[in-house]
């Protein structure tokens, strides 16, 4: 059984079709990478899974999108987004304290108990491998952290509301190599508890961290298979050209 699944997914931004007939299944407790050149639809598909595309005007969506075999359009969109968390390309902490950033989601779901919030904040920061760096400065503004720390804070913020899926849209593209490797280690850890889908431009990154990789081109899913197979023995010529760096 798949954790996330789409069947014949089509999406239009106005007149432009961004996704064409995509059917894909994501396995639970795994890391799946979406790769492909810019504008291939990988981020668009990612944003379908928690209905972030609803926020963009003139978007038309057709096909089935399932979370645990339930159509996500039959679910309350706010409940869906609590189950399917998202980390964005650029770190986007709120201009509040470190503590309040993580507590934000807890307060949204109606958390009132101070100690419970405190415990969950700590746990989430530990899960995001940030606790050791921010313990003791929780009341400092989140924007005083470095870029890499900010991104891990955003991950902690997402983990705090206990999602089952975490979507990551090029989470390391704005970071330096050291911060990137910390994020990658973290993703590897998180796999134990969460299902992770990551969009990346960096093919080595996809090869390093993911179990499965999907290659998109011009809105179509060209190939989807185990990561090692995708990088060593792709079936499709375009996949081969892309992973060997001949285009894209």
């Amino acid at each position: 059984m798949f954790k996330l699944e789409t069947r014949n997914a089509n999406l239009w931004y106005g007149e432009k079709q961004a996704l064409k007939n995509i059917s894909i299944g994501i396995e639970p407790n795994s890391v799946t990478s979406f790769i492909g050149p810019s504008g291939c639809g990988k981020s668009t598909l990612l944003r379908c899974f928690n209905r972030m595309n609803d926020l963009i005007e003139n978007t038309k969506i057709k096909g089935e999108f399932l979370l645990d075999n339930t159509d996500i359009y039959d679910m309350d969109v706010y409940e869906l987004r609590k189950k399917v968390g998202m980390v964005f390309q650029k770190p986007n902490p709120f201009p509040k304290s470190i503590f309040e950033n993580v507590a934000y989601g807890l307060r949204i779901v109606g958390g009132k108990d101070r100690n419970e919030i405190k415990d969950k904040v700590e746990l989430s920061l530990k899960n995001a491998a940030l606790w050791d760096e921010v313990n003791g400065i929780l009341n400092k503004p989140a924007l005083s952290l470095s870029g890499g720390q900010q991104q891990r804070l955003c991950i902690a913020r997402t983990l705090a509301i206990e999602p089952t899926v975490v979507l990551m849209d090029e989470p390391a593209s704005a970071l330096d190599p050291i911060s990137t490797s910390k994020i990658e280690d973290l993703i590897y850890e998180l796999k134990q508890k969460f299902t992770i889908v990551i969009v990346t431009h960096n093919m080595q990154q996809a090869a390093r961290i993911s179990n499965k990789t999907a290659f998109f081109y011009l809105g179509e899913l060209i190939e989807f298979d185990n990561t090692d197979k995708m990088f060593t023995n792709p079936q499709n010529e375009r996949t081969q050209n892309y992973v060997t760096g001949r285009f894209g």
Partner: protein
Amino acid sequence: MRRYSYTRAKLTDRAFKYVALSFTAFALGVLVVLLIDIFSKGIARINWDFFRNLPSRHAEKSGIMTALAGMLSLLFFTIIIALPIGILAGIYLQEYGKKNRLAKLIEINISNLAGVPSVIYGILGLTLFVRILKLGNSLIAGALTLGLLILPIIIVTTREAIRAVPDSLREASYGMGATKWQTTSKVVFPFALGGILTGIILAVSRAIGETAPLLVIGALVYVPFIPEGPRDQFTTLPIQIFNWTTRPQAAFIVNAAAGIIVLLLITFLLNGIAIYIRNKWYKKIRY
């Protein structure tokens, strides 16, 4: 021939530079002359009694106490009326109804309202609040009139402040399952607060200087008491200044200048605070 026109072009350029610089200096000079003129005429009259005394038919005994008190009470009610309405409308137009037809219509309407002469608001206030709603020429009628007058300013600045909030913050909030109102009230609004505050202070500073609409709704020029409730009659500092300015006796002109000094200090103080907050806030949003 070419060389000739080239030199001429350079001369024009140089000449324009000095003409333009002198125009700039002239505009700034007018401000300086205005301030010097008023201070030299009125500063001698500024003393404790001037603030404490009631208006009087003797210029030397006249003070601005009732005018100041009336102005402050008027502002208090104006803010209470206009602030919530203006901020909520601004939030709605920018954050909720960006593209729909109603919002478009309201936007055109607001841009038009911002250009309606204040004396017309006076006619509206006189007919609607003073006569139809029978509020008389009271503080509350004045506050409602000024409230409508500054509403477009508050709405426009609220919208601008909200427009400056980066979309990435909204996405982060929605991505965690926050609703529209949760995102608006907990993320967007606190972030925009600095900009909104600036707009409010500028609106208040505008309301302080307004004279014409209050004259039209029948605010009195001679009020020997401090208003105690919203239904009381009132006068304000600009009205008091207007009254003194139109008197033939030189002693009242001195009073007018002294009143203007107080009015200008309040106006400049408010504008200074607004600029200070705006600069602080700009630093915050550029991150």
